[in-house]
């Protein structure tokens, strides 16, 4: 039975130009959730953003993730996702999946489903 695991992450809200020009830690995965916001996965160390002294940088532990192999993921998405997935890989996308707010990180062979914890139970129920 698939399970969601808590993701280690930071949320960073800053001027878009500051986000554009920042070098993120090597193992971190920056997901641009909005022009002025990044969800930085695999990051827990203090992050600084010298380009924007007003940036909001907060540890984020409410996102949960689940990797699915590509075929399984696409089968689920075809049933539950009304919007078109990006063709390029890797790619980031977000929107309603089975009427749950979901973020997707698409790699060539697999997809990471990212859900905030308050929706985790409903998401898993709809995944089954």
């Amino acid at each position, binding site marked *: 039975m698939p399970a969601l695991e808590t993701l280690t992450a930071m949320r960073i809200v800053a*001027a878009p130009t500051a986000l554009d020009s920042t070098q993120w830690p090597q193992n971190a995965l920056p997901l641009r959730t909005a022009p002025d916001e990044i969800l930085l996965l695999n990051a827990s160390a203090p992050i600084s953003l010298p380009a924007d002294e*007003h940036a909001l940088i*907060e540890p984020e*532990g*409410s996102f949960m993730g689940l990797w699915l192999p590509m075929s399984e993921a696409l089968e689920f*998405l075809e*049933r*539950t996702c*009304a919007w078109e997935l990006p063709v390029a890989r890797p790619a980031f996308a977000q929107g309603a999946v089975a009427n749950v707010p979901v973020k997707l990180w698409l790699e060539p062979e697999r997809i990471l489903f990212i859900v*905030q914890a308050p929706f985790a139970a409903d998401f898993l129920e709809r995944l089954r």
Partner: protein
Amino acid sequence: MPRVIFENQPIDFHEGDSVLIALLRAGQHPTAGGCLCLAGDCPHCLATVDGVSYTRTCQTAARPGQIIQRHPANGEPPLPTAPAHNVEVPARNLHCEVAVIGQGAAGRAAADEARAAGKNVIALDSKHGQEVIGIYLGPLVVARTAEGMWHVHAQEVIVATGAVELPPVAPGNELRGIMTARAAAQLHAAGINLGRVVAIGAPPENIPAELAEGTLLRFEGESKVEAVVTQTAAGAERRWPCDTVSIGLGLTPRDTLLRIGNGLNVRAVGEAAQSASLPPCPAAGTVCHCSSVSVADLDAAWERGFREMELVKRATLAGTGTCQGAACLPYLRSFLAERGGTVQAPFTARPVTRQLTLGEAAAGAHHRATPRTALDAEHRKLGARMDRVGGWWRPWTYGNFLEEYWAVREAVSLGDVSTLGKMLISGPDALELLERLYPTQVSTIKPGRSRYVLLLNERGYVLDDGLISRDSETRFALTFTSGGASMAEMWVRDWAESWGLDVRLLNQTMSLGAINVTGPLTHELLRRAGLSQPLQYMQHVRTEVAGVPCRLYRLSFTGEISYELHHPSEHSTKLWRTLLELGRDLGIRPHGIETLLKLRLEKGHIIVGQDTDFDSTPRRVNMEWAIKMTKPYFVGQQAILRTNKIPLDKQLVALEMAEGPAPLEGEVLWNNGEYAGYVTSSFQSPVLGKVVMLAWLKLFNDALPETVTVAGRPAHRVNAPFYDQEGARARA
């Protein structure tokens, strides 16, 4: 030979037969009769197939063991008699640049052309098992298939659905044995003996048929057609004995889907794109077989003044039936043209074009997920009755409301307030944004301090309430009500962007858990959890509690010492359990929403949405202290200046009643027999020994009545709060 079951009798069928052809081959008919089209356009082959009513048997492949039943002969709707089966229907979302509906010559050409232009094409055709039932915004084409529903998201839709053969309208047109020329050809090709065939209009292909000359007058027969009667040019009647009548009266575009797609990127090709030439206005006979509407019925509607297409449709129900006007619309138009002298446009077409089961309609749909706090499992383990409140699953009560209530008033209690809206704001314009958004003087809030605030809309009505907490000169934390949280980010962000202010916004509503620790023993509990120094009232700090990093807010909604512990939600369970353990000998209990609502009522605190309405101004809710009209500007200020010139007409007031039971929330107030308002919150207070209420009360002769009648008993107006008027307990 495989067999289907028709009316409890097995019937042989040939491979490739539709259900209808199988029945006709066996000398049966699924309905009373009428002109068959075998193209899915008419209502004359509808039956219940495997429990699904209104199935078009001409479009349904026969399968061994299929159960086929006629619809009730008395015209009653064919309601299911057995429990529904196969309720859940899967959906597939497909994406393309061009969706082509219909794969006749025109449809294939359109698809080929699009593919040649490098476009991604999805071609749909009912003959291939994809029955399109509607086009929606997008455009989104929804089709029924054997594997479930297809939701085809296309950039462009091409309708190539061809044309419908016109049925005849004349007395006797409900008899069996009448069919369109194409239907006759299909049946003949399937090996069905049509007997003696008479053709009206163009004859069927490859079938010997006698051409009935003259104008069609009527069909004759008992239940099955036996003859056609025409009128010659000289005016004489001529009778044409027959077993089958083939109708070749011409074609009309099958354009229902095109009309449904009006305004979307939908176009038609081929016969579906052609303009309809109207048939002659019928003199008599059934026009709409779905709703049994005759020419006489149309005349009656016309005489009553229903002379527009949409009105005639509604007055007679012609076109509202299972075929959605495919058969009758040309005749409705010719009728109105003949009577009124002008050709009227077809009536509006809307999805769906075919009957759906509830499962098919719901395919792919999911209800909105209700979020759960990180403590959801803890609440359930403690036996909480969960309910949806403010858009979240929340504990209503843990079983004994009074125990929860007294724990707050006399000991210490925990409440899960993770659902509160929580937002961080920073930036050089953060203060300016909040000064414009809120009616309070934000600049006087010192770092480390919080203030209760109202949020108003442009009309000066109360939109929400919450806290502003200042971290530094340029950074603030905001809270909103649980119900208002989803709106709050949009509201703040929209204004910030409209004003072009340089701010950063971080919505942390779902990221942070929040536990309300409340009761006179709160300080002792927090001391045990590591808080060395109590905070001042309306102070906030970042510190650790029980090893969990928290933002602590000292405030009070319950009327007792209270702290909200906002913390990363992944630590909620640890913090909750530790506090419960540390407070075991203090009499700690969790409290649910029911208790919280009553506790705050004793303090006279409003709940936005329960005690307020869509026209509640600060003056009406008696909270003018929360707005500073001398500020240069805030959202709603101009509206308040304007509405304050109008005499006050009603106000949210506090009422007391000596004895219970508490009136129902919503109970009407009476002033000397006259309607005076209604109760918004009520509670028989254990600690006060009386009933306390908030209520909307009308002014009479520019004054609020001192006493009103509620549920037949007197209630007296008092000043809120009811409990601890000086606020000493909350500030202790």
